């Protein structure tokens, strides 16, 4: 689609200031340096990979060397490391925590379970890879990846942050063309996949927060697996996440349910 660029000719008088471009570039470099070397991690550690994530923060590998500090709350973090299997019961919580992270935010899928669901991917209660819901920036293979491998993944993320801030990042298309890729392909295509229907919005996936709250019962029995966007956006407004101390997040309606 052609874009009308006629209104872009306006230039602020400040831009003509001598030496500005040099200063702006230096500031930008400084900011990039800061952004790449202070990637604070929110450890979405659910299972085995979480232990290796701890090992990465511990004395042997010491991720603090590169400014990677593990924090307990999503509001202070730049990177969400999804380490471990995400189940149907857990996934809405992961999405809520992801929503609470400030932009710019990055996501690392650590280990086979987070990437594709591993051998659990066929199981009724496991979601087949976190990238069906959250855009993943770096995939670290391993079961679980060694701490060094996680370190390599963080370095790889630094590369990407640098490229994105420098405007050089060209996103790759996901091409599940090989037969093996088809094997790990879930019925909901991943976020970057071309096959993914635009109807599956983030709002819809968030609406899956109804799971365990009786929300699925409200839907018609013969309704398609994915509810209409209108319904689920309502669900979000009615279930604004409340934050309790220490970063624990739950929806209030669940308390009522548990009491009932």
């Amino acid at each position, binding site marked *: 689609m052609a874009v009308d660029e006629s209104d872009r000719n306006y230039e602020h008088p400040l831009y003509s200031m001598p030496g500005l471009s040099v200063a702006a570039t230096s500031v930008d470099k400084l900011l990039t340096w800061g952004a790449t070397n202070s990637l604070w991690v929110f450890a979405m550690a659910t299972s085995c990979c979480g232990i290796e994530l701890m090992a990465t923060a511990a*004395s*042997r*590998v*010491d991720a603090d*060397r590169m400014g990677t500090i593990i924090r307990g709350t999503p509001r202070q973090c730049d990177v969400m490391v999804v380490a471990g299997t995400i189940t149907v019961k857990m996934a809405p919580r992961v999405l809520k925590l992801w929503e609470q992270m400030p932009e710019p935010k990055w996501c690392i899928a650590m280990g*086979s379970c987070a*990437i*594709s*669901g*591993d*051998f659990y*991917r066929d199981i009724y209660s496991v979601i087949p*890879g976190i*990238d069906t819901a959250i855009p993943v*920036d*770096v*995939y*670290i*293979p*391993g*079961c679980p*990846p*060694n*701490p*060094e*491998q996680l*370190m*390599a*993944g963080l*370095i*790889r993320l630094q590369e*990407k942050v640098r490229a994105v801030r420098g405007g050089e990042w060209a996103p*790759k298309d*996901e*091409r*599940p*063309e*090989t*037969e*093996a*890729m088809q*094997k*790990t392909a879930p019925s909901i295509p*991943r976020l*970057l996949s071309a096959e993914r229907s635009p109807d599956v919005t983030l709002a819809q996936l968030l609406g899956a927060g109804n799971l365990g709250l009786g929300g699925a019962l409200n839907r018609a029995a013969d309704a398609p697996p994915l509810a209409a966007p209108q319904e689920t956006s309502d669900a979000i407004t009615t279930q604004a996440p409340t934050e309790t101390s220490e970063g624990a997040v739950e929806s209030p309606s669940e308390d009522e349910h548990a009491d009932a």
Partner: protein
Amino acid sequence: MGYFFDAARAMAMSLKSAFRKPTTIEYPFEKRDQGPRARLTFALVHDEHEEEACVGCLMCQKICPSQVITVVPGKKRPSEATGKKRGFADDFVLDMNACIYCELCVQVCPTDAIVMTQEHMRPGFAREDLVLTMDKLYANEQEKELSWGRASILLAMQDPKRGTDQERAVTKKKSAAKAATKPKPEPKAEVKADEPKADTGPTEDAS
């Protein structure tokens, strides 16, 4: 007061660590010694005739608990080096997106074709980066240090009839002495060489 004293004691203990040899290994600059058995990613290897060792028997595909291996067996054709008919794999895809590194595929391989490497795989920006195609697997053979595990080694190690170390040492010496006196061809090759002969023999007689 006691609390203050104990907190100080704990801090003094922490201070003691400052004078020890550092345990941190500065990862990208120095590497940890992982031992020869480390299993971190995969490679397909060539056999002693510089031919692809994989015969496309699908054993690894069948045993994989995570179902990540896809082998497309090709037609049997005579080997260029030996002239014997053998199988080849047309395609071999290992999806590291869901691999669990359990080493079962290595153990069941009848020709020691699939091995693991001591160096880990590079994290990728997309899922397709983590799919090891046949080219990447053969490239890994050259690029990465192969680990110790092979089907023949693992199976020999687990042999229920295996004797004690001393007995093994004796048999090793004997076999070494034998090998020194007369070079023996590979037993597997012998069996394969026999089969086509046995097949073709009677038909020639009948004609």
